[in-house]
C-alpha cells in the first residue's frame, strides 16, 4: 500500500477502523476490438453507517461503472474488474460465490437506478414486485410481506398506500415510481444504499421531495448511502463527503464542506464555474474548453491536461499521484490549489 493511498484512506475514513464499504484501488476495463481499455483506475474510497458519499463527474467518468462493480452487476458484459478490492462489512465482494452474493444483494445492499420509468416491471403490480424482493430474503408469508409493502409505501409517502400497493407502474407518476424503487430498495433494511442519479429524471420540486426522503430515512435507519450525480448542487446539499471523478480517476476527494471551501483541482473548479446559477447574473460562463476524451484516445500524463489552463510539460507526461492538499482533502494534480493567472 503506497503512502498516498494510506493518506487518502485516513482522509476518507477519519480513523483506522473497518468501514462498512471499502473500495481500494479499483480498476475496471472494457474489452473492445480485442483490446482492454481502462475505464476506472485506482479508485479508492470508503463509506460508513450514517454517511453519504457523493460521487460526481460527467458522462463517461466511470462513476456508474464503479457503482455497478460494487453491486456485482458487470457480469455478462464486456466490462471486467481488472484489479483492486471491494470489501463490504468485512467480506470480499469480488470473491463471493453466486449464492452468497445473491443473499447480500437486494438485502443488505441495495441500489436505486436513474430511470424510474424503466426499472419497474410494467406487467406486475408494484406491491407484488416489493413482496417478491422481501420474500426472496426473509421468511415471511405473503400476507406479512404485503403488510410490510404497504408500510414501506407509506414510509416513502405514497398517498393511500393500502390501495396503491395494487397499482401498476404506468398508473404512477415518475416521482412516485422512484419512491416505489426506494421502497423496494429499503424493503430489507439495507446497510448500504447505492443511488445512481436517483433524481436526474425528475422535476426539481419532486427531486427535492425524493432527496429529503432519502435524508430522512438515513437519520432513522443509519443506512450508508453512495449517491452518484452529475449535479454539484445535489451533492453539496446531501453528502457528507465527495469524490470528484474525471475519466476513470478520483481527482479530488474531501469532506463536503472542506471541498467547497477550497476547490483544489482545476477540473472541480471548472465544473463549478460551468454551472449557470439561479442566484446571480454573469455575462459569460467560464466553460472548460474542449471535451472529455473518448476511451479510444490514448492519453499520457494527467487526463485533464488537454483542457487545463495550468498545463505544463509535466502534466502531459506524468500522471499526478494522490496527494494530501490539506488534512482531509486529497487531490490528484501537480499544481493543486493554484489558480490560472
Amino acid at each position: 500500500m503506497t503512502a498516498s493511498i494510506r493518506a487518502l484512506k485516513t482522509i476518507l475514513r477519519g480513523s483506522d477502523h473497518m468501514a462498512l464499504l471499502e473500495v481500494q484501488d479499483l480498476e475496471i476495463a472494457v474489452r473492445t476490438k480485442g483490446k482492454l481499455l481502462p475505464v476506472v483506475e485506482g479508485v479508492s474510497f470508503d463509506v460508513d453507517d450514517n454517511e453519504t458519499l457523493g460521487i460526481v463527474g460527467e458522462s463517461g467518468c466511470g462513476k456508474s461503472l464503479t457503482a455497478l462493480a460494487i453491486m456485482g452487476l458487470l457480469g455478462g458484459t464486456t466490462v471486467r474488474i481488472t484489479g483492486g478490492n471491494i470489501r463490504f462489512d468485512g467480506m470480499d465482494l469480488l470473491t463471493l460465490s453466486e449464492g452468497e452474493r445473491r443473499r447480500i444483494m437486494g438485502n443488505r445492499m441495495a441500489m436505486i437506478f436513474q430511470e424510474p420509468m424503466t426499472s419497474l416491471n410494467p406487467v406486475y403490480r408494484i406491491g407484488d414486485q416489493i413482496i417478491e424482493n422481501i420474500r426472496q430474503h426473509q421468511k415471511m408469508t405473503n400476507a406479512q410481506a404485503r403488510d410490510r409493502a404497504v408500510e414501506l409505501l407509506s414510509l416513502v409517502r405514497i398517498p393511500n398506500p393500502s390501495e396503491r400497493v395494487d397499482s401498476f407502474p404506468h398508473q404512477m407518476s415518475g416521482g412516485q415510481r422512484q419512491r416505489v424503487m426506494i421502497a423496494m430498495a429499503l424493503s430489507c433494511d439495507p446497510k448500504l444504499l447505492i443511488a445512481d442519479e436517483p433524481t436526474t429524471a425528475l422535476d426539481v420540486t419532486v427531486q427535492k421531495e425524493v432527496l429529503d426522503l432519502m435524508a430522512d430515512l438515513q437519520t432513522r435507519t443509519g443506512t450508508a448511502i453512495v449517491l452518484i450525480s452529475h449535479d454539484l448542487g445535489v451533492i453539496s446539499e446531501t453528502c457528507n463527503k465527495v469524490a470528484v471523478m474525471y475519466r476513470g480517476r478520483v481527482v479530488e476527494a474531501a469532506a463536503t464542506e472542506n471541498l467547497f471551501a477550497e476547490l483544489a483541482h482545476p477540473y472541480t473548479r471548472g465544473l463549478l464555474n460551468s454551472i449557470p446559477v439561479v442566484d446571480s447574473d454573469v455575462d459569460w460562463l467560464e466553460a472548460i474548453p474542449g471535451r472529455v476524451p473518448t476511451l479510444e484516445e490514448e492519453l499520457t500524463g494527467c487526463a485533464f491536461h488537454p483542457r487545463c489552463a495550468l498545463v505544463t510539460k509535466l502534466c502531459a507526461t506524468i500522471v499526478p499521484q494522490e496527494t494530501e492538499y490539506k488534512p482531509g482533502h486529497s487531490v490528484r494534480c501537480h499544481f493543486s490549489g493554484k489558480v490560472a493567472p
Partner: protein
Amino acid sequence: MSEPLLRVIDLKTHFRTKASWMFGERQLIKAIDGVSFDIAPGEVLSLVGESGCGKSTVGRTLTHLEQATSGRALFEGRDFLVMSPIEFRPLRREIQMIFQDPFASLNPRLTIEQTLGEPLFIHGLCKTWDEARAKIAVMLETVGMDPLVMKRHPHEFSGGQRQRIGIARVMILKPKLVIADEAVSALDVSIQAQVLNLLKKLQQDSGVSMLFISHDLGVVRHISDQVAVMHEGKIVEIGRKRQIFEAPQHEYTRKLLESIPRVKIGKEVA
C-alpha cells in the same frame, strides 16, 4: 416598447386521448390553456416549467407541429396559426427550431454539408453548391467548428458538436425567431456551458429573437431577457428576468426557486 415580433394571444391547444378498448371515454387534455406573451425584436423570452406543464407544446404549436385549438399568434402582425401549409412556408425560414436531442435531430445518412445545404436550397438562398459551401464554411466557423468537417456524418461527432451543428443549421437561414426547446439539456455541464455561451453570443450578434424553452432555471437566468413560468398549461407569472428571480410574486415560482439544490461555497457552512 417597439412592435413585438411575436405576439401570442390566449393560445389554447387541447388534445383528445384515444378511447382505449377497455376504459372507454376519450379525455380532453388541455396542454395549453390560454397563454399570452410578446417577444420584442432581439429579445429572449424563456418559458420555464416542469414536465407536462405545456411549455414544449407552445413551441410545437407555433411551428405548426401541433394544431392550435383557439387563440392567435401574430408574427410581424400577421396571424400565422390560421395559415395553410403553403402560406406558412415562407415563414418557416424566419421561424426556426432547435431541438433537444442532438442524436435524433440530425439525419444520420446526410453529411454535414448536405444537412446545412439542404435548407439553403429549399428556401432559395443559394443557387449553386459552391455558393452554399462558402456559406456553410463561414457558419461552421461561427459555431466553433472546423469547416473541414463538412464531408463527415453526424455519428462522427460528440453530443456537444452535434448541437453546434443543429444551431448552425438554424442560424444559416438567418431566421428572425428561433424556438429552442431544451436545447442544452442533454449536454454535460462543461459542454452545456460552451453551447450556452455560443447561443447567447449568436443571439446578441445577430439580433434574432428567441423563445427559449427549458426546465432549468439556472440556464434560463443566464440567457433570458424575459421569463414566463408555466404551470398546468397556463402562464402563472411573466416578467423581466430580474423581477422573476429576485422578487417572484407567484407561489409556484417561489416553490420552483426554493427547490433547486445549490452549491454552498466557502467556509461559513462548515
